[in-house]
């Protein structure tokens, strides 16, 4: 019995070590990609704001049952910048080798006015959602980042 307990203890400690070895290599969210602009105040008028809200709340409501501790930050993107470059950036920052994958549940591929993409792994997620350039105001469109990763330092 004593040996059994010792064995069990060894097994648990080995499992703990294994878990520690597999801990999250990305403790914080990646830095916000450079093309995203921070503004002290929301930039957009009623029409764009309404589409923006519809775009992110749809994804938020879909994500919330599956991911704890979601937060949202708002940004602006110049229409000179292709939003696909943001996708490339997150692909690099949240790589497949660390367990990250594209999460197609949070894609706006079918929506006419918005785009989005998401990277997720066990309980962690980053969703980026924005409006298409056709809906710009002053050469910019709204972009939102929904995530439950810790803010980048």
């Amino acid at each position, binding site marked *: 019995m004593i040996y059994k307990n010792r064995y069990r203890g060894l097994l648990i400690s080995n499992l703990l070590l294994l878990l520690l070895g597999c801990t999250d290599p990305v403790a914080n969210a990646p830095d916000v990609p450079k093309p995203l602009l921070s503004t002290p105040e929301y*930039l957009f008028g009623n029409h764009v704001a309404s589409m923006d809200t519809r775009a992110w709340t749809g994804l938020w409501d879909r994500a919330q049952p599956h991911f704890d501790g979601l937060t*949202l930050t708002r940004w602006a993107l110049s229409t000179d910048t292709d939003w696909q470059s943001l996708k490339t950036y997150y692909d690099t920052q949240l790589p497949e080798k660390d367990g990250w994958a594209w999460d197609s549940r949070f894609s706006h591929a079918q929506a006419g006015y918005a785009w989005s993409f998401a990277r997720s792994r066990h309980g962690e997620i980053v969703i980026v959602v924005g409006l298409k350039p056709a809906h710009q105001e*002053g050469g910019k469109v709204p972009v939102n980042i929904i995530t439950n990763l810790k803010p980048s330092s």
Partner: protein
Amino acid sequence: MGPNAVAQQSTSAQNQTPTANPVDQAVSSIKESLSTSLTDWAVSHNDVRNIASTFEGLNANQSAAVIDELAKDGTLDTMSAEMSDNFNGLSLDEKAAFFSDMATKLDGQTLATLSNSFAKADPKSGGHQDVEALGKAVATHATVDTKVDFIEALMPKMTDKPDFSISYIGGSMTQTGDAEALAVGHVLGSLQNNPAQAENIFNQLSTEQLNAVINAGLDQTSSFSQGGGSVSLDATVAGKVLNTASQIGNADLKATIFDAGSAALQHVNDDFGFPLATIGQNAAADTLGDGLTRIIDSDTTGVMRELSYNQQTFDGTAFGTYAKHMLNTDQTDKLGEQMAKLQFGNNLNEDPVSRFEQTVSLSTGSLRNENAGALGHFVAGVYNGAASISSDVKQQQELTTSVLKSVLTIVDKAKIGGPLVGGAASVGKEWVKYAVNAAISDPGNDAAKQMELAAIPIDPSTNEIGIGDAAMSAFNDRITQTQRLANP
């Protein structure tokens, strides 16, 4: 320096010629007081009192020159350390008198030099007690210009030591709050009748510095011993800072300060956890709540507009935290008054339908119904506050009903639709009253629906909403966002 040396020094001073430079004399006298030797091995209490007396005999320029001179070779730090010494240093009263003397004479930069010197005297706490005492003296005795210069000079040091702990036999104590941030809080609190200077200072503070001032102004002390632990709070200084903020003219800046105050309120209302006893928690929350109310009352429509559209506060946590406190402390009448102002304008004399529909033109040329947005932010904040108090639908409903009844009272009392205002406002007033009454009287409306419906004027003759699609969209947008993101 012993008593003989003091007597010798006194004789020597009498023999000096009247033309001798008083600054040089004072510097020399202070250095003599601080000197030690084999026969005079300690700086005594009399020595540090002599130093304070030496300063008393100097005018403002001479005092500043002496501080500058002493700072050059590090003697100022020695002086501060000796004055702060627990055994031979100045008593608290003596030190307060010395700081008062300095605050009336020195310019802001020199006072900051003195403060920094006292901060070094107790590296563990950052000179917490003395730096605060000097800040208090500046707040009470210095001129407004000196206060502004003093704060500006202390700004780089406001966030470097957010707390410190002291261990003693059988326990420990942790004081939260940076010493310089607390000193700045005292001085900012004293600028209540100088809104232009206060605004200038608030404008210069980063978010981190502003939070440091408010947090230090909570005077949070946590004590732990074998018998248990306690947390004591006193938000007097933070409250004064918020009061000063309520007097400045810039609504955007007020909203930023509101955000910092609201975060402090959320912290104060936190459960500090069993078995910690809390002392002063409710009083501190009330002080902060009153300060936040003053900020909103000073320009309800302006501050709410900024809270709705600023990136820092759009999620509704700041206002929701405040609304929760107001609901928890039975201040629904004040929330009702604020809602009425959002509908009828700060002077309660505008047409609520026109106000709801009013647009502003952004630099991009697009339009935004900001009054509608601010009202949406408000009603969602009140609902979120109610929901965070209780999950019981009926209790939530009671809280929001109480707010809405206050709206009716305010609207009835206000001179809306008087002869100077004209018919539209009078009609709008009836539409608002109809909407509020309808929202309250329908038992099927939960608290969220009640707040939302009560805010939208209804034409009693047709029972139709009296607001166009664009304004409704702006209103609903704020509600949709806040209900998802706020965490009061």
